[in-house]
């Protein structure tokens, strides 16, 4: 030890002291940094918590908006329905209101003729005229009443809505009902071809399936500018019902074809509730365990193919149904 010179000892001591001081400083710095990092981490966690809360809120608000949009889409098709009904009712109403008036006039004339309790030659001619008029009235009354009965029957198919009950639906009947309500748009310019196959009743939510057909048929009719043909084909493919709605309308371009089921996609201009029809259509079909596909050629027309299982999958409908319920509640029905 004594061999170690004093300067060495001093140097080592200085070094050791320096190292210790450094170590202490380092430890302190490390601890300080660690603390700082912990604070930062805590802040980040707080921030994360805040943004999680914010996104949960945003998600809830998005859900509300979607429900509102779905509801306005339903309102749009409700509007179509009401216009159809108003138009359909107008013809028999015109006939009936005229007939009522004719009957009143006929009675008045008969009373005048019968007043003196004698019927002369001239009056006999008049009576024959009255009889002919009343016969015409009877005939048209029958036609008008029949038309209204048919209309009410179609509406009843659509009137089940919003209770979302499982039905066994004759798809052909459902298609006919939708067609009848669109007849004011089709009768003049669209030829409707029915190629109906053999189909058993399909277990489904009847109101929703009606909405699907209404949406597809309205789209097809709107796609036909001027005159054209609407072909509806049905068939059975094992345990699935297949419905094809084909129009000879304007068609959809390839780039748009991929987007037709996206929310907000529309070619009909910016109107509230537009551009959701096909999204809802697909949602409904998928909820039934079915599928929908589309093929189209610009200028030639578009074909939508819907496949629905004859029996509902057991767990359906899922949470999506809430959206539809929320929508229907907002329409003030249900």
């Amino acid at each position, binding site marked *: 030890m004594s061999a170690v010179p004093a300067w060495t000892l001093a140097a080592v001591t200085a070094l050791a002291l320096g190292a210790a001081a450094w170590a202490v400083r380092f430890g302190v710095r490390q601890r300080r940094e660690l603390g700082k990092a912990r604070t930062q981490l805590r802040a980040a966690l707080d921030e994360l918590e805040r943004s999680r809360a914010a996104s949960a809120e945003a998600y809830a608000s998005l859900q509300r908006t979607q429900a509102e949009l779905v509801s306005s889409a339903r309102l749009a098709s409700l509007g179509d329905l009401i*216009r159809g009904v*108003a*138009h359909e009712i*107008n*013809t*028999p*109403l*015109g*006939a009936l*209101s*005229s*007939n009522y*008036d*004719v009957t009143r*006039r*006929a009675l008045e*004339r008969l009373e005048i003729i019968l007043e003196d309790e004698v019927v002369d030659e001239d009056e006999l001619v008049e009576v024959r*005229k*009255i009889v*002919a*008029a*009343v*016969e*015409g*009235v009877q*005939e*048209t009354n029958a*036609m*008008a009443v029949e*038309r209204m009965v048919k209309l009410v029957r179609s509406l009843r198919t659509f009137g089940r809505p919003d209770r979302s009950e499982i039905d066994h639906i004759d798809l052909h009947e459902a298609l006919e009902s939708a067609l009848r309500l669109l007849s*004011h748009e089709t*009768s*003049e310019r669209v030829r409707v071809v029915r190629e109906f196959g053999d189909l058993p009743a399909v277990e489904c939510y009847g109101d929703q399936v009606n909405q699907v057909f209404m949406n597809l048929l309205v789209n097809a009719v709107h796609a036909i500018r001027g005159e054209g043909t609407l072909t509806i084909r049905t068939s059975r493919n094992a345990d699935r019902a297949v419905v094809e709605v084909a129009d000879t309308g304007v068609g959809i371009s390839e780039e748009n074809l991929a987007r037709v089921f996206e929310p907000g996609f529309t070619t009909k201009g910016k109107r509230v509730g537009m551009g959701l029809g096909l999204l809802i259509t697909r949602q409904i079909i998928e909820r039934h365990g079915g599928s929908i596909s589309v093929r189209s050629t610009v200028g030639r027309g578009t074909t939508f193919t819907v496949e629905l299982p004859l029996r509902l999958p057991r767990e359906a409908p899922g949470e999506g149904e809430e959206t539809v319920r929320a929508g229907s509640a907002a329409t003030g029905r249900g």
Partner: protein
Amino acid sequence: MREDQPGTVLIVDDERMVVRSLQSFLGLETPYDVLPFVSPQEALESLETRPTQVVLADFMMPEMDGITFLKKARELQPEATRILLTGYADKENAIRAINEVGLYYYLEKPWDNDHLKLVIRNGVERSSLFNELSSRVEALEKANEELHGFRERLVKAFL
């Protein structure tokens, strides 16, 4: 008021119940001959041969719309009075027709029978007046020609 003059009224609507109702009413309340049609094509064939005072057409018909029909009717019988019967929400088309086919009147469904009777009676009268006017104009032209010939002869006789 003067007595209703005779006249022929043609009705065309693809809805049989409408045609039949109009026919019942006009048959009971007016002296006119009513020609009912559910096909515009057949109605045009009638117009080719039978003088008609009033042509009443529905707007929405699958075979041919009311404006096209009335345009063709005008070519066949220009002096006939043309009336359009419009359904729900066809008003814009009716207004378009006023200029395109020289429409006299448009009635909306459901129609009022008294109003319809008045419009048709005025239509018949108007068409008859047109006919009378054109035959008077014809007679006047003929007289004018005769007068002209007479004057020429007179001038020749004196020169």
